[in-house]
């Protein structure tokens, strides 16, 4: 069914369709309309779930962690400082290998207070062991939530579905809401290998030693390092599983594409703009303008940020003259996190091949600073003249 709604509602509908059992959330702008909508579904009886209005984000994820450990499909959502307040739990959920899905409605972090959009919140959680997906429009939000449950439960790794605050969360766009039967065909009920229960007592997340240790039957059990190694290995494997998810999804719902990247006019482009989220759709407008000027540019959205699709990106960018990475977040003291990751991927896959593009980083839209399409166009035009600066270039800055 096609409807016109905002991005938060798209996410809420995804959660509804996935028959989530336990939802826990704490209000923070711009996530609030999403979780309010979920409370409406639950209170009205439209959704059979437990909705827990917790007293903090730390507890929101605590509820999801515990409920997931007891075999429930769980959901939470947050933004900015809410996500930062969860940080301990974010790491815990990944270490405990729980397939929790959380929407991160991207917003700038304090201090100073700022409720507008950038992506510093989710980028700052890059190294927590969560899969991160970024959405560029409302259709991608609802679809990503559905895919995320399938993938998370397949690989036992939690997933953040990230989308830009206001730009997506509060704007209205048409999108298709899939039929419940199709979602049920795509996603079966959550059946974990183990869920806490008195008939099969187990002590979960106990103190685990640096070295491996014998159990009472004399079998070797993992040490902490093996457990963490497996998280890394299975994160990497989940790249392949994500492709499987995308294919299954396309088979059932008839839409989808490359699971990792979303190229626009990239095939013959000499310069490619790269980014996360809605920004890449805005960049398409600039690409269209520059194409008319005869400048061969394209834009590529990164849909999957962790695990990082290094191979897919290197393959797509090899032989290009330049790559311009637009970021609404920073690793303070260096550059955008995405550009660092991208350069490392290019180096790994293309060093010495002679097809290594120049890379430039542009920082913009921090704390909701207006991103003018003319500025994007101008930045791309300038980069296409190969005026590459080694330092990140800030645009829209008024100093």
């Amino acid at each position, binding site marked *: 069914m096609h409807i016109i709604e905002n991005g938060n509602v798209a996410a809420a509908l995804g959660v509804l369709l996935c028959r989530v059992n336990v939802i826990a959330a704490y209000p923070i702008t711009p996530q609030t309309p999403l979780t309010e909508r979920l409370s409406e579904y639950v209170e009205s009886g439209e959704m059979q779930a437990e909705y827990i209005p917790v007293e903090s984000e730390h507890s929101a994820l605590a*509820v999801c962690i515990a409920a997931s450990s*007891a075999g429930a499909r769980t959901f939470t959502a947050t933004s900015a400082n809410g996500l930062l307040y969860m940080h301990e739990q974010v790491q815990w959920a990944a270490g405990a290998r729980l397939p929790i899905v959380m929407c991160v409605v991207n917003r700038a972090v304090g201090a100073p207070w700022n409720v507008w959009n950038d992506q510093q919140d989710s980028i700052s959680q890059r190294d927590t062991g969560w899969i991160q997906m970024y959405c560029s429009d409302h259709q991608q939000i609802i679809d990503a939530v559905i895919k995320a449950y399938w993938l998370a439960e397949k690989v036992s790794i939690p997933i953040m579905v990230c989308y830009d605050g206001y730009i997506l969360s509060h704007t209205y766009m048409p999108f298709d809401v899939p039929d419940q039967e199709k979602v049920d065909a795509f996603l079966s009920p959550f059946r974990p290998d183990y869920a806490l229960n*008195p008939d099969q007592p187990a002590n979960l997340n106990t103190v685990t030693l640096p070295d491996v240790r014998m159990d009472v039957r004399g079998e070797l059990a993992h040490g902490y390092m093996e457990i963490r190694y497996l998280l890394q290995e299975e994160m990497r494997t989940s790249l392949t599983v994500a492709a499987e998810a995308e294919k299954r999804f396309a088979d059932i719902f008839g839409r989808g594409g490359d699971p990792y990247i979303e190229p626009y006019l990239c095939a013959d482009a000499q310069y490619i703009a790269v980014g996360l989220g809605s920004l890449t759709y805005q960049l398409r407008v600039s690409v269209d303008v520059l194409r008319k000027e005869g400048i061969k540019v394209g834009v590529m959205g990164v849909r999957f940020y962790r695990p990082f699709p290094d191979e897919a990106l290197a393959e797509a960018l090899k032989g290009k003259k330049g790559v311009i990475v637009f970021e609404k977040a920073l690793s303070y003291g260096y550059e955008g996190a995405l550009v660092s990751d991208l350069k490392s991927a290019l180096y790994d896959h293309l060093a010495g091949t002679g097809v290594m593009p120049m890379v430039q980083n542009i920082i913009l839209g921090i704390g909701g600073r207006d991103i003018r399409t003319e500025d994007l166009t101008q930045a791309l035009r300038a980069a296409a003249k190969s005026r590459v600066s080694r330092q990140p270039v800030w645009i829209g800055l008024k100093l």
Partner: protein
Amino acid sequence: MQAKTTILSLPTQEFVHPGTRACTGCGLAIAYRVGLKALGKDTILIVPPSCLTVLQGLFPIASTKLPCLNVTFASTAAAATGILAALKSQGKTNIKVAAWAGDGGTSDIGLQALSGAAERGDNFIYLCYDNEGYMNTGAQRSGTTPIGALTANTPFKGKLQQKKDVPAIMAAHNLSYIAACSASYPLDLFDKIRKCVDMPGTKYIHIHIPCPPGWGYDPRYGIKIGRLAVETGYYDLYEIVNGEFKLTAASEKLVEKRKLIPVREYFRSQSRFKILADTQIAEIQHQIDAKWAGYYKKDE
């Protein structure tokens, strides 16, 4: 009224394997063993980092025979909510949820989550075992460390502030059941857990836990010291049932006896109180006497 459990009628089934990693003479080991007997098999436990994490053993060997979720320090009560929500969504109504946390995990870092769960009225038992300090990290002060106690981070002057009264904080949440217990009176603990298990909403049980290394005494005297805390009128055993306060067990008997052991004996039994001056002890004795005068008056 339920009959009082005796050592002969205590269930023989054990839920804690012998040979835990607790210190010799640990009061927690006693309270946990008896407490789990009271909770019984159909229970899911939640434990934050504390001595109890250590007591339960190192992966892959556990000393507890009940399912247990180890959680982050501040999240104990919220985790209880999460398990309850999962059980509810699965239609499982026969499984109890019991959180066991230390005094630091309860009175300090976990208080917000506990207050949140209690305010929501989530149906579980929260047991705070109070060894009056952050013992797992080497005996630093906590909110419930009593005034005058030397700790690893109040090394010379002792703690200058009073013990935080967590049961009173929980009483402000209008819980169906609150109790104060002691590891030195394990059967009383057993009966109180059994009594409240099926009561609605959040139930809060506070357990005084003598701790040889943290308090500074020879392990063999643990039970005696826990009893002294009660017999001196310093730590009281009581219940608050639907808002009604009542002294119980040994403390109730003290009202009949009208005679308390001088608190000095309690303080002098542990090296953590060695800097407590006679004048300070006299001051605390005065406070205890005033508190008990109130109890006596109520009894008349």
